[in-house]
């Protein structure tokens, strides 16, 4: 598959969304929590409590919707500031109760619009980046489709970041990149190649820890093994002293990009 094939696969409307992951992994144990307590309830972000094989966890995800009606309701998974603030509220709550946080990322990007700017889209994302870096409980983020720039990163400052094998994660969409670089959106496939945005590229660059097999909604076994993997990771991170966990999280991002002074 070319990089652009992966982009198309990541955007495929038929692939499992955050809601599918929640239903298949947590079933009836999931209890949804709404609202940012400041402005409203952004339906592009779904969050709540669930039991992971008996372990209480906070689950937060960007949800694109599974049919046209849902997609409209969920703004195609593009969150407003209140969505990121809802996510942060639930993370702080998780910290209080020493629950690990599991994030699912699937968005073409944070929403670009008048309301989003008026309510501080940049500030909302910035605050998440800062607060997640020192949140005193384990965080694991899984990119299950599109990882669109700052809007994805705002749920992906974590101890580990995993990606499905056909997910993508990029600073800019291939179309946007092509239109800036060559003034030609139709060269998106070339741009996708240049951006190094596939799970395989990102693993090589040291930006993610693990590549996961693509699950199908009917494939219960894959969700079961994913649950085991997540539970093991949380158990390991819960047993670490908090200052060591935060030191490791800081260094995970600190070391990205090789920088040495000349001479």
């Amino acid at each position, binding site marked *: 598959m070319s990089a652009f094939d992966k982009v198309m696969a990541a955007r495929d409307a038929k692939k499992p969304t955050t809601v599918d992951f929640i239903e298949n992994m947590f079933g009836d144990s999931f209890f949804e929590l709404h609202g940012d307590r400041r402005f409203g309830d952004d339906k592009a972000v779904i969050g709540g409590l669930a039991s992971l094989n008996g372990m209480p966890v906070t689950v937060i995800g960007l949800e694109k919707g599974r049919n*046209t009606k849902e997609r409209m309701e969920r*703004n*195609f998974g*593009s969150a407003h500031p209140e969505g990121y603030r809802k996510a942060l509220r639930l993370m702080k709550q998780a910290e209080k109760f020493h629950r690990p946080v599991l994030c699912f990322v699937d968005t*073409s*990007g*944070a*929403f*670009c*619009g*008048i309301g*989003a*700017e*008026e309510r*501080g889209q*940049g*500030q909302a*994302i*910035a*605050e998440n*980046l*800062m607060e997640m*870096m*020192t949140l005193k409980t384990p965080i694991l983020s899984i990119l299950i489709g599109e990882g*669109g*720039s*700052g*809007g994805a*990163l*705002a749920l992906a*400052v974590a101890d580990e970041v995993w990606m499905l094998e056909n997910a993508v*994660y*990029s*600073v*800019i*969409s291939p*179309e*946007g990149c092509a*239109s*800036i*670089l060559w*003034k030609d959106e139709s060269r998106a496939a070339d741009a996708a190649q*240049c*951006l*190094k*945005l596939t799970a395989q590229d*990102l693993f090589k*660059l040291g*930006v993610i820890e693990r590549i996961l097999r693509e699950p199908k909604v009917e494939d219960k076994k894959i969700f079961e093994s994913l649950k085991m993997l997540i539970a093991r990771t949380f158990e390991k991170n819960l047993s670490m002293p908090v200052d060591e966990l935060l030191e490791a*999280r*800081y260094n995970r*991002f*600190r070391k*990205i*990009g*090789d*920088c040495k*002074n*000349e*001479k």
Partner: protein
Amino acid sequence: MDLFTFLKPKNELEGASADTELNRPFVPDSMWVKCTGCGAMLLMSDIEENDKICTKCGYHFRLTARERIKLLADKDSFAEFDADLMSKNIIDFPDYNRKLKSSKLKSGENESVVTGRCTMGGYDVVLCVMEPGFMMGSMGIVTGEKITRAFEYATENMLPVVVCTVSGGARMHEGIMSLMQMAKTSGAVKRHSDAELLYITVLTDPTTGGVTASFAMEGDIILSEPNALIAFAGPRVIEQTIRQKLPKGFQTSEFVLDKGFIDAVVSRKDLKVTLVKLLGLHNVKRAGEVEN
């Protein structure tokens, strides 16, 4: 176009250097310049003497990093950090090597930010100033690294930090590595903040994208120069997404002040005095003072 494509929000175009808003002119090297703010023809030397502010309408022309350091740091006090740190083409992005070379020539800088330590009205501070002439202040790995190191130095030495931003956003030529700098710098800011140290940001025209969505908006106190573009998504991107013209004054410093996201709009003339006043209100060490 089907309904799905039509309704699908466009991606945030971070690093969108093609944005016309971002290409407002520097003062060109000719005798006369036309003011972008009021259209008046101004004598170059008059503006130079006036901190590059229009003598007719108060329009703030862009400053280079060195000009701004000269404006803010006490005379000859600036000691630069990591001046030799240079970006590499880590993901083999087409044409990036040439772009880096021409940006260095154009700006005379090795990267889009200059960092160092100086005194400001006698107070010891770490000062980071972004350079608009270097790929429109876009954030690459080295930008993120220099800012991170500056914050780590400040945390270690218990110093306040002042960062002056000007940026088109993330640098797409470094792909995901550029995006990761948002998290990296935010982590360093958080540690500095947790050490109960002061961080002041000064937003200048334009501050957008990944810089807005990270260290620019993380200051304890956020100032801005007048009439600067302060945005997450640039106006063109929003217009393309919502398919309508934006109201006049949208995303200016004054607009962002009104919406509650910055503390004050400060004229360049008053910037240093304001910073010194704020430093004075925070028990910041004066140079030469010994800690007990």
